[in-house]
């Protein structure tokens, strides 16, 4: 008897006990659907976190003032503005920091913008032309300000897409005037939307030359003071070198001998990313583990039903043996039954998992990712589990003595 005939016999046995087969499959099905959903949720969350962090700019290092001690009292992060334009200029030096590609000092404050009858409060950022590249932003209309405008304190501003829409509606904002704290500024460009829905909206802002912001808008007694310095490393592999260079340079500029006493903090986007990734990976493993247990329970269900099936079909097994089926054929028949239940359960479970992913995507703030690899692996695992748990019942069927089998009523 060839394998196809054996497979057919196994399939017929499944077909003739539809209800029982369906219930057996259900265990596997739920397990697989759960695995696919949890892995999808985990992957979706990871993609979401990665894109949110990527949208801040690649290979980004941020220097923030903070942890400064004043009279022996440790002050909070950002409580004083220990960073200056001088620091930013020093970091721009290719000699001091060869691994830093670009530097952009930034200061920002929330201000009221008015244009005609509309007004809108947004965060006004004063920075240098390097900001655009470091933050991986592009322009939807107009242009960004240049070094000449930075040096000449030009009254120009580039708006985020949300800000432009709020102030000007459908009209083209480029060339129009917007008043910020009473100072008229010319809109020279509009940034492209990032499409990101991170907590701080990357599309609601107004960017202008640092000098203009410091002198015309923010004011204050130290106009060279900056809130943070954005730096871009040359590549992700030189990120750590760039960090070392910036750290050493700033320590020496600030006359600090012990790194523990530093009055600034450098954080890298990679460090945020890896923390976020490891959190979502831990969650995925945890949820996946729970799902795997449910899959295991499904496998035990297959064994349970197969054992019942063997007991119930003792006469059939006996008859097949009497008619000349060797033990190996009987074993193969039951293994085929178990593996087909696993395979069908796996396929249906994947479909339900994928449907669940679509449904869930509309409930959670990100897309649940169903990767073909996860589906293929789950279906394979479902089949393996079912076949594995089918080995014992199949062996019992194969071992049945034909006379005992025929005698039972």
């Amino acid at each position, binding site marked *: *008897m*060839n394998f196809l*005939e054996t497979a057919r016999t196994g399939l*017929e046995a499944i*077909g*003739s006990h539809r209800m029982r087969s369906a219930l057996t499959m259900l265990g596997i099905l739920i397990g697989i659907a759960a695995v696919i959903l949890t892995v999808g949720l985990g992957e979706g969350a990871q993609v979401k976190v990665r894109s949110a962090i990527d949208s801040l700019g690649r290979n980004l290092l941020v220097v923030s003032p903070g942890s400064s001690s004043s009279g022996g009292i440790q002050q909070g992060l950002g409580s004083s503005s220990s960073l200056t334009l001088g620091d930013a200029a020093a970091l721009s030096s290719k000699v001091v920091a060869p691994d830093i590609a670009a530097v952009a000092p930034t200061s920002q404050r929330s201000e009221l913008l008015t244009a005609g009858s509309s007004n809108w409060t947004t965060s006004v950022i004063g920075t240098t032309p390097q900001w655009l590249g470091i933050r991986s932003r592009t322009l939807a209309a107009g242009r960004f300000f240049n070094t000449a405008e930075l040096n000449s304190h030009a009254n120009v501003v580039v708006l985020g897409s949300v800000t432009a829409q709020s102030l000007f509606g459908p009209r083209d904002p480029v060339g129009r005037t917007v008043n910020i704290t009473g100072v008229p500024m010319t809109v020279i460009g509009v940034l492209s939307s990032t499409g990101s829905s991170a907590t701080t909206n990357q599309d609601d802002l107004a960017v202008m030359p640092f000098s203009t912001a410091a002198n015309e808008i923010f004011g204050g007694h130290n106009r060279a003071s900056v809130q943070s310095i954005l730096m871009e490393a040359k590549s992700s592999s030189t990120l750590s070198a760039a960090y070392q260079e910036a750290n050493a340079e700033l320590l020496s500029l600030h006359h600090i001998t012990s790194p523990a006493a530093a009055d600034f903090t450098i954080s890298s986007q990679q460090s945020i990313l890896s923390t976020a990734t490891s959190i979502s990976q831990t969650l995925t493993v945890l949820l996946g583990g729970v799902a795997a247990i449910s899959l295991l329970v499904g496998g035990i269900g297959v064994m349970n039903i197969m054992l019942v099936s063997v007991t119930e079909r003792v*006469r*059939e097994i006996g*008859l*097949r*043996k*009497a*008619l*000349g*089926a*060797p*033990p*190996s*054929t009987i074993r193969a028949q039951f293994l085929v039954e178990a593996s087909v239940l696993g395979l069908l359960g796996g396929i249906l479970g994947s479909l339900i998992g994928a449907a669940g992913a679509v449904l869930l995507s509309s409930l959670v703030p990100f897309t649940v990712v169903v990767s073909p690899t996860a589906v293929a692996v789950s279906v394979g695992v479902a089949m393996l589990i079912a076949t594995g748990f089918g080995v014992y019942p199949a062996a019992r069927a194969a071992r049945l*003595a*034909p*006379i005992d089998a*025929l005698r039972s009523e």
Partner: protein
Amino acid sequence: MVEQPSRRRPIIDLLEVSKSYQNGSLHVDALRGVSAQIGQGEYVAIMGPSGSGKSTLMHILGCLDVPTSGTYRLAGIDVSGMSESELAEVRNRRIGFVFQQFNLLPSMSACRNVELPLLYGGVGKRIRRERAIKALEEVGLGDRIEHRPSQLSGGQQQRVAIARALVGEPSLVLADEPTGNLDSKSAEEVLSLMERLHGSGRTIVLITHDQEVASRASRMLRIRDGQLLHETVSAGTGAV
């Protein structure tokens, strides 16, 4: 009249066959030194009351079980020490079973039930079907090929079972109380079918406790307490 069995080539050759088994703490000697020969083309009834060992004898004759001691040759082959797989092959090629409970698979058509021995014998699909239909026609069920067992009467079901026993061209048809579950009319049909098969040269061994059924065979072996009694040649329809 009937030829002496020893002159024919024996299909069944039992020599001092014993079978004992342990039933809990009870030791049972089901067969004690049974010797017998059944020749090609014979129609033999093995008769005995329940507990006489006739079922055990039937299991050994059918290669469903092996003797504890003694030898059993089926068509010249010693099957006494064969493994489970080897016995399965012998059953498949040499023996056609007819059971009291018909033992048809309810989910399959008559035709596919009859095909089963050929399936395990490795016969191709088309030839299987052709031979199964031929066997069903032989037992007078050529018009019931695609019927399920549940759509057939008891007598018809037993005839399907007989077709299944014949389809593999076995050396021996072994019928265990084939009329035990049938009304007298169906039983008569089955018995006359057996006689017809005997007439066409088949070797048939029929196990029964019913004197009337046993008397239809051409030779009768009586068994009691695990031993064969003297043989009687039936006066019934034994002519070949």
